[in-house]
């Protein structure tokens, strides 16, 4: 397996008046042309890991790593300009909160068109056609109507798919998808996953899939990283998730409601201090 992304001992810290917040505490993994899932509870550092790889960490934070390389390019040594160029073209991230990531005063269609035209020389008419095709690919009903709507005029799941369309249209080699389907109904969710799956299988894209839906991750990804308190507590084959070793991973799996099990109240996690050690 050729390595697309190599992360070794990644750390992200935020200095604050009351001390430093260690958001990411020594994360290491390698990614090939595969689907890697990152799961873990809220605040465990999933998004901060993704943002650090993208170079989207806010300036007040400190990022360090023994190694952070994309396709042989040392990202720690790259200039802000080089990183911006990578972001526009070869690396893309679907951000967790579509309503905040979309521009509220620009129509959905125009945002996708501008993204496309920012890195490919295409005519206005062609850009519009391709944007419409992309909206259709993410299963938007009536793309022509939605093209002209503003973000506050679309439903939660439509905004999320607009964001996905915008990131896919650039044709990245590495995609970091942060909770890309959390607002979608289950059938549309699978359609979106099929698109991502095809890009991995046919174009050799590398995919980091951040999600709190362990069931989905176990059926969709090749490997899974489980994070807790800024660290990786377990790495496991996705199909083996059910046989995970760490009590935290097992706890996360167990607290999800199931259609055919009647459990009231649901079990909740009993967090142990040693998990964070």
């Amino acid at each position: 397996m050729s390595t697309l992304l190599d992360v070794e001992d990644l750390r992200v810290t935020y200095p604050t008046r009351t001390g430093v917040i260690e958001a990411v505490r020594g994360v290491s993994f390698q990614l090939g042309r595969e689907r890697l899932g990152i799961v873990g509870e809220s605040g465990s550092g999933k998004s901060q890991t993704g943002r650090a790889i993208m170079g989207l960490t806010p300036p007040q934070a400190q990022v360090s790593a023994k190694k952070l390389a994309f396709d042989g390019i040392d990202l720690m040594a790259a200039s802000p300009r080089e990183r911006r160029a990578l972001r526009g073209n070869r690396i893309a991230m679907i951000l967790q909160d579509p309503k905040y990531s979309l521009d509220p005063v620009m129509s959905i269609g125009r945002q996708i068109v501008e993204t496309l035209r920012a890195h490919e020389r295409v005519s206005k008419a062609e850009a519009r056609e391709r944007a419409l095709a992309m909206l259709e690919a993410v299963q938007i009903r009536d793309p022509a109507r939605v093209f002209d709507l503003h973000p506050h005029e679309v439903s939660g799941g439509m905004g999320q798919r607009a964001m996905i369309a915008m990131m896919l249209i650039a044709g990245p080699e590495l995609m970091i998808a942060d909770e890309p389907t959390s607002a979608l109904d289950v059938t549309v969710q699978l359609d979106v996953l099929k698109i991502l799956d095809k890009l991995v299988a046919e174009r050799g894209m590398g995919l980091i899939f951040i999600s709190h839906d362990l069931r989905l991750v176990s059926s969709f990804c090749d490997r899974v990283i489980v994070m807790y308190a800024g660290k990786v507590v377990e790495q496991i084959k996705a199909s083996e998730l059910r046989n995970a070793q760490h009590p935290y991973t097992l706890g996360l799996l167990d607290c999800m409601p199931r259609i055919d099990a009647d459990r009231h109240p649901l079990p909740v996690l009993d967090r142990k201090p040693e998990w964070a050690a």
Partner: protein
Amino acid sequence: MTAALAIDRLEVVFDRFRALKGVSLEVQPGESFGLVGESGSGKSTLLRAIAGLAPVTSGGIAVDGRTLGRGRDKAFYRQVQMVFQDPYGSLHPRQTVDRLLQEPLAIHGVADGERRIQRALDEVGLGNGFRFRYAHQLSGGQRQRVAIARALILEPSILLLDEPTSALDASVQAEVLNLLEEVRRRRKLTFLMVSHDLAVITHMCERLMVMQNGEAVENLAASDLVERKVTKDYTRNLLKASEGFVRA
């Protein structure tokens, strides 16, 4: 028995787009009713129409047998409260939890505010330590707890819940679902709840409606869904898709 909530052939139109095409539905007092269905099918619009936040062009909405007019008066909001889909957007980030909870009390001129704030914070499992924190300093799960506390503070009898846990991780979701069940039992509340997660709906609701493209596809008991006793292909597809991803 008078329904807690009765929706009769409701139509909502944005510009010329029909977001709801004659949807009807009844929820009994103390019942928990689920809405599932396609993204963009009108689930949020239905809740927003009840709350007076969507352009209703025809049809009726009645609460406890009283048909609602165009506007919503203060009495309505004492009876019906809504928790929105997005815990990041629904609370003003630069306000403290205390301010967020005081606001509805001030608007409604409630006298025993202090007792109610204590009770609501207690109920959602946020100690007094959280009372003077800003919303932007809270995690997603904590924010959703504040949103629920805010919805409870006027002591309503009906809660409209729009994807209350879809932005939360599995462990926090379990905590929030347990919390919602607990307050429903204790306060004898009626729920109308949207979720795209069928397991969440069967866990929380007795009956449900499946929606697609602005219309009801079918009405089911949660137990029908559990036993796969469904009649429409769309519902069958939802059930199938809930099992996870299958690589072709």
